[in-house]
C-alpha cells in the first residue's frame, strides 16, 4: 500500500499557517473565485464573510483538497495543498455547511471509523469519543443510527468528527447553522478556545454578528473577489461604521432597502 506520508513536517519559520495565493476557480463559464489572496497566522480565527454564492465555500473546499484551483495555489502549514493533500488532510479538521453523514451508521461507528482512519491510538480513541459525546450531549444517541438524528445533532456529530484528532487547522463552513442558542454559544466558545490554544481557524459565515464575536480578522468576499481584509476595528474605522454589518453593506452594497420591503410586494 502506498505510504501516506509523515504526520508532521517542519514548517517554515513565520510562514502563515493558511495562505491563498491568487486563487482562481472556474466552473465552466462561471468564475467562482477571482484572484483571491489572503493569509492566516497561527492561532488566528479568521472569517471569510460574504453573501450567498460569494465563493466562500469554494475557497474552503480548495484548502481541504475537495476541489483543485484552476490557477493559483492554496497552502496549509507551508505546504501546497495540491500534491501534499494527505499531509494537509492529516492536519486539518473540516466541517461542511450541510454535513450529510452515513445515515445507517450509528454516531459511535462514524466517529470510530474517522478516529481510526486518522490513526488515533485505540485507547485514546474511546476516551475521546466518550468525552465528545458527553460534552455535545450525544451520549444517548451514540448507538442510534444517524438517520434518526435531528439537524442540530448531525451538526454536533460532524463537529466532533472535525475536532476528534485535535487538528492544527480547523476549517469551518457556517459552524453554528442548525444549532440551538445554547450550543451556538458553546461552539463559539470552543472556536475561540481553539484559537487561543494555537489552532488556526478559517471560518465561513454570512452572519456578521458571529464574525464580530469570534473572529480576529475577517476578509470580505463578494462575487469571488476579496474586497477587503482586516480586524473588525480596522474595518469599522476604515468605513466609519458602528457594526460589521454596516461595514459589509457599505463594502458589498445593499441598494435602496425601502424598495425591497415586503409592503412593496
Amino acid at each position, binding site marked *: *500500500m*502506498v505510504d*501516506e506520508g509523515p504526520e508532521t513536517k517542519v514548517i517554515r519559520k513565520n510562514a502563515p499557517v493558511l495562505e491563498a495565493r491568487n486563487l482562481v476557480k472556474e*466552473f465552466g463559464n462561471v468564475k467562482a473565485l477571482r484572484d483571491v489572496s489572503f493569509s492566516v497566522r497561527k492561532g488566528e480565527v479568521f472569517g471569510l464573510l460574504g453573501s450567498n454564492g460569494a465563493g466562500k465555500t469554494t475557497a474552503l473546499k480548495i484548502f*481541504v*483538497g*475537495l*476541489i*483543485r484551483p484552476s490557477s493559483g495555489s492554496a497552502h496549509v502549514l507551508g505546504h501546497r495543498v495540491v500534491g501534499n*493533500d*494527505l*499531509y494537509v*488532510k*492529516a492536519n*486539518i479538521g*473540516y466541517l*461542511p455547511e*450541510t*454535513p*450529510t*453523514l*452515513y*445515515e*445507517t*451508521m450509528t454516531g*459511535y*461507528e462514524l466517529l*470510530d*471509523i*474517522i478516529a*481510526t*482512519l*486518522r*490513526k488515533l491510538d*485505540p485507547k485514546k480513541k474511546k476516551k475521546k469519543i466518550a468525552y465528545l459525546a458527553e460534552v455535545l450531549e450525544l451520549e444517548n444517541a451514540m448507538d442510534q*443510527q444517524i*438517520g*434518526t438524528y435531528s439537524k442540530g445533532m448531525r451538526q454536533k456529530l460532524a463537529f466532533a*468528527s472535525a475536532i476528534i484528532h485535535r487538528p492544527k487547522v480547523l476549517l469551518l463552513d457556517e459552524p453554528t447553522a442548525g444549532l440551538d442558542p445554547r450550543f451556538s454559544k458553546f461552539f463559539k466558545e470552543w472556536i475561540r478556545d481553539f484559537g487561543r490554544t494555537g489552532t488556526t481557524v478559517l471560518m465561513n459565515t454570512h452572519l456578521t454578528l458571529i464574525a464580530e464575536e469570534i473572529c480576529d480578522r475577517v476578509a470580505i468576499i463578494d462575487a469571488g473577489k476579496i474586497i477587503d481584509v482586516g480586524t473588525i476595528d480596522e474595518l469599522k474605522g476604515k468605513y466609519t461604521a458602528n457594526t460589521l454589518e454596516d461595514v459589509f453593506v457599505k463594502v458589498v452594497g445593499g441598494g435602496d432597502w425601502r424598495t425591497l420591503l415586503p409592503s412593496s410586494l
Partner: protein
Amino acid sequence: MSYWFILLAIVTAWASLVLASTISRDITLRNSDLVVRPETFILFIYLILTGKSLVDTLHKAVESKELVTIMVQPVSPVEVAFGKFLGVLVSNLTIVAFGLGLVASIQLGSFWLNPSHPLSITVEMPDGSGNLWWDGYGITHFQILDIIMLAVIASCMGFVYTILNSLDLKRRALGIVLYSQLVTTIFVVLRWNEDLASGSKVRILPYQETLALSIIMVMALISIYPTIRYLFVEVWTKETSGKKAMWFQRRSWGGLGWLERLFSPRMAHLIKKEMIINIQKREIIGNIMAIIGLSVLLIWGWQKIEGLKDIPVRAQALAYPAIISVGIYLASILQCGFIGLGSVGKEGRKFWVLKTLPVHPERIFTAKAWAILALSPLTIIGVSIPLPIILGYSLVWKLFFVLMTVAMIMTFTGLGLIMGARYPNFNESTGGMPDIMTMYLLMLICLGMGGGMFVFAGYTLNSDAVAGMLATVICLEIGFIVLTVGIRAGAFIYSRTEPRSV
C-alpha cells in the same frame, strides 16, 4: 457521452445483425418435455418491469426528499403523485418500445441478410402443433399488445405495492393480500394458457388472452387513484421523516473482529464502512434475490432442455457450458460490476467524509473492492457450483467454472470500479447508479472481456485438460490484473473528482 451513445448504437446495430444472421436459419428443437411458450417470455418481461417499477417508485417518489419543494406548492398531492406514477409508466413503456424496436431491427436484418430464409425458430410442441415463438415473421400483434398492457400493469403493481409496503403492518398485510388477487389473475391467464397447451389441445385464443389482460389493466389503473388519493401523502411523509433501519441494518457492525484479523485496523474500518453502505443499498438484496432466481432458472432451464438430441453434436457440447457461462456472467455483473459502478456515486453528498480524511485513494478503492469481493461467494455458491454438479461434469470442468467465476468477479469488479469513478452519479435518489447508457456500456465491455476469456479457456480445456487449466489460470491472472488496474485507475480518477454538490 454523445460519442459513446453513437458507438453503442453502432455496436448494438452490428450485434443485432450478427444475431439475425446467426439465427436466420430454420432451427427446430424437438423435445418431449420442452414447453417454452410466448407467455413464458411475456411473464418474465412483466416480472422484470414490476421489479423496476418497485425500485423507481421507492427512489423517485416514496423516499424522495426533493419532492417537498413541489408538495408545498399550491398543487394537489394527487396530481404530484400521479405525475410520479406517469414517470414510472413512461420509463417502462420506453423500455418496451426499445425492446420491440430491437426485435423489429433483428427481423429486418434477418430479412436483409437472408431473404430466402427469414427469421424462423420453430419449437415443436409434444402434440406436433409447433410454431410457438418466432413464427416466421416474429411476434404477433396480440403478443405486442399483451406486452404493452403488461408494462402498464407492471407500473401500477410496482407503484401500488411500494406504497402498500410502507403502511403499518395490518393495513400493509390487508392491502397486499387484496391487491395480490390481480397478480394471481395474470399468472392464471398466462400459466393456464400454457398448461392447457401442454396438457390438452384446448387453449384460449390469443384475442381472449389479450381481452383478459385488458380487463386486468383497467382494474390496475383504477387501483392507482385510491392509492394516491388516500395513501401517498401518508407514506411519503413517513418515509422521508427519518430513515428507518431494515432488520438486517439494525444489527451491530461493531463486532467485525474477523476483518481486523485479516487486515490492518484502518483497512478493516474502511471495508466495514463500505459493507455498511453496500448493505444499506436495497439493490444488494435485489441482486441476491436475482442470483438465487438465476440459479433456479438455470436448473429449471437445464431440466427443460435435457436430452436435446436434434441439434448438432458440437452445438450440444457447447450448449450447457454456454448456459452456465451466461449465468456466471449475469451473476457476476449484478453482484460485482454494478456494485462497483455505483461505488463512488453512492457516497452522494457524503463524498466529503472520506475525501477530507488522510487516506490514500488507493486504500479507499482497495476497501471498495474487498467489500464487493466479500459478497461474491454467493455467485459461486448460487450459480457456478450447482449446475456443473447436476450435469455430472468432471472435476476439471467443475473447477474450471469455479475458477472462471473468480476471474469474472475480479474482472467485472475492476471494470465496475473504473467506470464508477469515471461516471459517478451523486444524485442520491438513484442510489448512485449512473445513467442507463453507462450501465449498458459496462455490460458490453464485460460481455466482450468475459466472453473472450470463457471462449479462450473453455475451448482450450475442451481440447486438452492440462492446457485448459493453464488457460484458466491465465484468465485468473487477467482478472487479477484488471482488478488491480481498476483499483489504481479508479483511485486516480477519484482523486480528481470534484463534485460541486458536496
